């Protein structure tokens, strides 16, 4: 395929005149059937790197994606752009729906799957019947971030790919240090892949860190920022209750277009709040890191961190949600001493403690379900449970029914925990150091990712030169339902009853309540 043909396809299918940095290179490699690892900053069109080849390659594109919402968003976006042959397969689908989709699997061009559902033999058998032209692993850093602890299905992707006839592999990520990139290639079994690494630096996002004496100063500051900065914006906090408190505080101070978002909300509410934010019906969303991945909103103007994330990769990923439209945007991290305690605690809770491991190891192995139920009773977090289960499985505990876990295996698990915790603590202190240090924040991120990012002249970071005033709001937005609600008016608007004679007719009916029921039977 010539470059000109590619460009025509790009315009016809996706409406872009030109490729963005890196897209063309990655796509050309895919056409050469090379395995590729591409690291491109968020908002630079990663998904195009497999969607466009999808229209040229004869077979289907299989995309492994870590999150249900991410898959669904991608499918929705494809559908909105007129591509109907996209589907998301996951363990939450009900049986009938799954059967309906599986029956016509060969119809689909873009098949999104969770790593977990690929563990299903039936699924693999069905996929084997298709011709898979490209095996994509989206958000590939999850392999390294979660694969070790609890998304252990990630570790089996390499063998699944070979069962599917070893199609070329494309691993995509927005943020991965060289160390993590190596881990991805190892785990996916693509040691000879071509790496396309584009800088994580986003020159249009100014980086600000602020240290405050006490916690209350941070609260005042977040209020001040949210009241004066041009939105829409995201405020990240590390617990559910903090997102609620921050949103309530902003509301108390007259900011009505604010909502909290976290994993504890009903699914339905989460979806509504997401859509409100996407439709610019909210100015600020106060959320945990449950919000963001897959949120494709181009005009986010600022990201504030009320609490610091546990590592710099997460931070870069989270602030990367700002300014996808290329316009000047702002990232502010608020810090006060003691802020590292919370992520420190999270690290501890991610793993079972020593007593729990010793206790479990001392029990003779019985059935899987019994073991899981026992773990449930032990008040461990989800990831600690999964970690323990996976480690026990790896040590062959379950195939030795009636026996406890041998001492050497137990020691291996305990030392693994120590190792992982130490690693995470190191990442956390790197994050704290970055926050507090006297250096150019942009350049330092570059150093951590082994890149050569330079300070920029305008709006670089709080250490270099920065004028926050540029980010202040120019005009007040209309407020959220300030007028009293008239349900009659709302209902008329919903069904477009304002312009035609139906409105007239109903209007006269409603004048006489006795006629209301007739209105319905007309």
């Amino acid at each position, binding site marked *: 395929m010539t470059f000109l043909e590619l460009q025509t396809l790009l315009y016809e299918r996706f409406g872009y005149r030109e490729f963005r940095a890196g897209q063309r290179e990655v796509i050309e490699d895919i056409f050469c059937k090379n395995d590729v690892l591409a690291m491109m900053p968020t908002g630079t069109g990663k998904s195009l790197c497999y969607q466009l080849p999808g229209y040229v390659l004869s077979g289907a594109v299989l995309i492994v994606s870590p999150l249900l919402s991410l898959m669904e968003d991608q499918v929705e976006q494809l559908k909105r752009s007129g591509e109907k042959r996209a589907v998301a397969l996951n363990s939450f689908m009900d049986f009938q729906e799954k059967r309906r989709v599986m029956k016509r699997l060969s119809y689909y061009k873009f098949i999104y799957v969770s790593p977990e559902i690929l563990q299903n033999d039936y699924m693999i058998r069905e996929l084997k019947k298709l011709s898979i032209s490209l095996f994509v692993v989206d958000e590939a850093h999850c392999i390294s971030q979660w694969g070790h602890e609890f998304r252990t299905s990630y570790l089996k992707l390499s063998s699944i790919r070979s069962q599917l006839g070893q199609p070329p592999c494309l691993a995509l990520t927005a943020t991965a240090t060289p160390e993590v990139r190596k881990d991805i290639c190892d785990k996916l079994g693509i040691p000879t892949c071509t790496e396309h690494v584009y800088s994580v630096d986003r020159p249009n996002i100014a980086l600000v860190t602020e240290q405050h004496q006490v916690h209350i100063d941070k609260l005042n500051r977040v209020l001040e920022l949210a009241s004066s900065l041009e939105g829409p914006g995201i405020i990240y906090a590390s617990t559910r209750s903090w997102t609620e408190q921050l949103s309530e505080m902003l509301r108390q101070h007259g900011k009505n277009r604010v909502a909290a978002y976290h994993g504890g909300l009903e699914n339905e*509410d989460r979806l509504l709040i997401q859509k*409100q934010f996407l439709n610019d019906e909210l100015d600020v969303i106060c959320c945990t890191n449950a919000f963001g991945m897959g949120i494709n909103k181009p005009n986010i103007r600022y990201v504030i961190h009320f609490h610091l994330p546990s590592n710099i990769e997460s931070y870069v990923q989270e602030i990367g949600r700002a300014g996808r439209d290329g316009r000047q945007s702002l990232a502010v991290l608020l810090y006060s001493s003691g802020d590292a305690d919370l992520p420190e605690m999270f690290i501890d809770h991610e793993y079972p403690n020593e007593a729990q491991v010793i206790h479990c190891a001392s029990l003779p192995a019985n059935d899987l379900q019994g073991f899981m139920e026992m773990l449930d009773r032990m008040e461990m977090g989800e990831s600690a449970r999964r970690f323990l289960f996976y480690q026990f499985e790896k040590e062959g505990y379950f195939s030795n029914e009636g026996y406890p876990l041998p001492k050497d295996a137990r020691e291996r698990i305990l030392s693994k925990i120590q190792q992982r915790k130490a690693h995470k603590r190191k990442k956390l202190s790197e994050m704290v150091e970055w926050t507090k240090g006297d250096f150019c924040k942009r350049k330092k991120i570059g150093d951590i990712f082994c890149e050569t990012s330079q300070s920029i002249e305008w709006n670089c970071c709080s250490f270099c030169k920065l004028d926050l005033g540029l980010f202040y709001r120019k005009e007040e937005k209309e407020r959220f339902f300030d007028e009293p609600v008239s349900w009659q008016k709302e209902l008329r608007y*919903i069904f477009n*009853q304002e312009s035609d004679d139906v409105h007239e007719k109903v209007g006269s009916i409603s004048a006489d309540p006795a006629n209301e029921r007739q209105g319905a039977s007309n």
Partner: protein
Amino acid sequence: MNMTEGLLLYFIKKFNGERSLSGFLHMLNGKKTSQTLSDGHLFNVSSFFGILPGLHRDEAEQTAAELLKGGMICLEKDRYTVTEKGEKKLEDFFDSHSYLYAFDGMRYKPAEQPFYQMLSLYIQSLSHAIRNDYTFFPVSQDPAVLHSVKTRFPKGEERQREADQLYREMFALLCERTDIDAEVFVLRLSRHNRTGLTNKQVAQVLNIPEVEVQLRFRSMLHFFLKKAKEENGDYRVLNKLAAGLDLDKPLTLSAQKTWHLLNEGKSMDQIIHIRRMKKSTIEDHLVEIAIHYERFSIDPYVTMEEQHRILNAYTVLQTKKLKVIKDKLEDISYFKIRLVLGKAGDVLGTANPVI
């Protein structure tokens, strides 16, 4: 009085000291068991089945303690009853929450969520399609819901007509309700240019408690479902959307299977054998079935003479405590007593001991 207090007080009144607090917690939570199904019937509280799905035991106990402190209930031998003051408060409570009368949990709780999902996506799609806007974010991503909406969605020209019709249906139904109910309902819906609000956001806009918004909204869904079904023809679109929802299956899933087998002419012993279940489990199912299906005859299981004796004992003792009735009728099993009381439930309304 807040919602939990009001509803708990109502249940205490209805159960009148014949069940402990945990005895009706499952009922409030909407957990379908043979016990809740038959209690719902026996004490005539089926309509409030599942009205407070998230209520925890601790919270219920704490609320009961508050009510006790406020002199609205009294506690004797682990059983609560309502005081005169409580009765009065309860009246006030229902005066200001009259929308609760439309709530019918036993019948509509399972259909609530699917119906809402379907209705809101249908309305959102319609509201956009009639303005030729096809680039909105659907409020539901559940493939099953998307599919159902798609198969019911009108084509081209018919869309505005469908919108006109659905407008008339909803307008008529909302007119039957208070303005505040109608406001809650329309604000929850997504339309062209506006995403629907969450319960919490509606509560903020209308300045009423969130739990009240939630119950007003759910009551409206029940009301819509009831109307969609009852007056078939008048509410063509709503009826179409409600079609296929699980409306008429008040039984637990397991009892449904037993009911199918009974309809195939299998005997109780055969069913025990086929389903490999304990006798007592199948007995629970039969009690459920007796409550909900009029055409199910209990005569093969209880002789006429026994039926009379049970009903007599009930009338004389004026209690729904099975133990008390059983003590009186030593030779008759619990199963038979439950079966007869279940069957007779409707005529045994507390104020109306006909027999």
